[in-house]
């Protein structure tokens, strides 16, 4: 029992799962039908799933995808990439600028996506070179693209905010005809499975953590920290491009100023809530994804409680502080200490009984 408690206290997934559970229970108590899923017919005449649970899963997919890349960067570079949302805006702009010039068919769509991936990866590699080769703190290095990224996105489409509408894009951002689950959720699941397989069957995950824990040791053991860091940035670039394209497809236009605004903060929060230390080292991919869903669940809950959209931030901040305080090692140790004290007191009571 004691070891189980210790294990639980050490596990990275406890706090995120616990907070998710708390939000779910809170919602169920407030409104029993909160998570009910209904099948409605959308305006294209296909049956689709609808409900708060679906909107949580759907709305969080962009942040969840980006949090995968951010987890890897956080783990090996001991810092965060704050330019993800700006790079996503660039990727989205490239995506739209390719689509606008041609008739939209499936090959063109795929080509546009690959092209935006390429651009996004190039920008990520720029960040990666600053971090890995020049050894600049990730937050400082990515501050460059954070401040210039949205302006570059503006320049790609000549300052316009074009709209694009096409059934194919609606299928990517909304529902594929005949499948009732929103496509972003499917893309997210595919992404997670792919990354899990990569981590399972390659040493990438191990190398990433080793570089994060001790770069010198990693180097002495024949791991090249520069390459590992660059790979993390490349993966992050692909994740960011995907998130940007999904968001563009969903809203049907590119606005370089507002696309995924403040998403970098949500992504970093998702990683932190997920139990990955922001100072690098051990990471937990599923925790980060759970973190993204927690943030979205919180947002949807607050909207359901009729909190004005601008004020949501304040409540979110309060809840996040509580989660982070609870998951901090100091508080965890304190709780374990208190538990042990209580446990030992019971033992002390038992012992005289046995002696008698």
């Amino acid at each position, binding site marked *: 029992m004691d070891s189980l408690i210790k294990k639980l206290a050490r596990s990275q997934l406890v706090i995120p799962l616990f907070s998710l559970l708390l939000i779910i229970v809170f919602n169920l108590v407030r409104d029993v039908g909160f998570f009910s899923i209904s099948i409605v017919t959308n305006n294209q005449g296909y049956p689709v799933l609808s409900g708060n649970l679906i909107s949580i899963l759907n709305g969080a997919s962009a942040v969840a995808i980006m949090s995968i890349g951010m987890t890897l960067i956080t783990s090996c570079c001991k810092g965060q990439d704050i330019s993800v949302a700006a790079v996503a805006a660039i990727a989205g702009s490239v995506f739209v600028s390719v689509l606008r010039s041609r008739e939209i068919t499936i090959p063109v769509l795929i080509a546009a996506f690959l092209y935006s991936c390429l651009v996004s990866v190039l920008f990520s590699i720029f960040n990666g070179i600053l971090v890995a080769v020049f050894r600049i703190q990730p937050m400082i290095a990515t501050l460059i693209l954070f401040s*210039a990224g949205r302006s570059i996105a503006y*320049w790609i489409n000549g300052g316009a905010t074009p709209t694009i509408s096409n059934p194919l894009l609606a299928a990517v951002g909304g529902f594929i005809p005949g499948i009732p689950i929103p496509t972003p959720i499917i893309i997210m699941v595919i992404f997670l499975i792919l990354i899990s397989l990569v981590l399972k069957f390659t040493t990438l995950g191990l190398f990433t953590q080793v570089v994060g824990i001790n770069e010198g040791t990693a180097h002495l053991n024949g791991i090249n920290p520069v390459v590992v860091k660059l790979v993390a940035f490349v993966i992050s670039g692909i994740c960011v491009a995907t998130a940007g394209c999904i968001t563009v497809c969903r809203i049907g236009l590119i606005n370089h100023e507002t696309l995924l605004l403040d998403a970098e903060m949500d992504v970093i929060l998702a990683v932190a809530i997920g139990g990955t230390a922001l100072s690098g080292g051990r990471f937990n991919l599923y925790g980060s994804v759970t973190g993204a869903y927690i943030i979205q669940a919180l947002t949807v809950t607050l909207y359901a409680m009729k909190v004005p959209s601008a004020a949501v931030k304040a409540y979110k901040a309060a809840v996040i502080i509580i989660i982070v305080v609870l998951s901090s090692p100091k508080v965890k140790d304190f709780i374990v200490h208190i538990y042990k004290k209580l446990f030992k007191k019971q033992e002390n009571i038992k012992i005289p009984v046995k002696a008698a």
Partner: protein
Amino acid sequence: MKGNNSSLTGRILKRRREPVSNTNLLMAITVCTFFGMYLVAMIVWGGGFLNPQQFLDLFNNNAYLLIIACGLTMVMISGGIDISGGGITALVTMVCVVYLEDHGGTVMGSLLIALGIGLAFGLVQGILTAYLEIQPFIVTLAGMFFARGMITIVSIAPRTASHEGFLRLKQARITLPGIGYYGKTGNFIPAQIEPGVIVAIAIVIVVAVVLKWTRFGRNLYAVGGNSHSALTLGINVKRTKFFAYLFAGLLSGIGGYVYLLHTGAGDAANAAQAEMQAIASNIIGGTLLTGGVGNVIGTLFGMLSLKTITNIVIASGLTKPYYQSITTGFMLCFFILLQSVILSVREKGSFRLLLPEWLKFGKANNS
């Protein structure tokens, strides 16, 4: 070799010249860059750059940013980060305006509220980061979210202050004797500064003195340079960090009031991205995020450089806002790379080590 811990060896080996510390070197580069940039701007574009009022407007418009950046310098020297400055600034403006307008407040009361809000944020963030050891980025990010969210809870619509006493203070200008420019009609217009600028300059001086000549200031460098060594030397690391965040919060509160004196309005969009501009000012000024290196005078010139480059971009005809942020990005990139090269050369003594690991490894094998 972070900080200036070479003074002891300098004294023992009397003949050897004491090397310039990283802090002073990075600061000197920034100061030279600023003066060089301004001189070039004066020669090439002339016009506004020759006008002393335009130079003073750099201070008038950005006094609040300077104050926030000073607080951030202390936090960054101690090895942390505080991104709640802009949020606190905006919250202070809104709360003070609402207090002055709806609750019949006094100027003194609003000033106390501003200080109180700043202190409260600093206190909570300090306790959470220093004593509970939560990552400062997350704590201050939550602080920023909380402040930005609270603004709309206080008032959704932007508000303008019309309190008489406050307006008198807001419209107060300090005329600098002897400096000025000739208007279009040929009359002499003396240059003016706002009271907020005096506050900002005073704060820069106070922080510079604190960092240089007080025990707390030296402790900050020690903690930021190497917190384990600082602990073994008997420095109370946690308390030092706590006070750094506390002062940063307090200065953000003061910055908020100075912002209010400049614009006279409370708005959720006030001081947007101020935290990132403050960080950029610090980086250009030579404060390292790793801690232990930095100077508030550098921050002052970092802020001035950042704003001068924007003015230059506008003066050269690129008036669209996106040119400004792209040049800001380039400037940051230049300074970051320069600092990386300089520090690496000073630490390891050669350029070769800047090459990627695999190149370096190859060379080591060959030799």
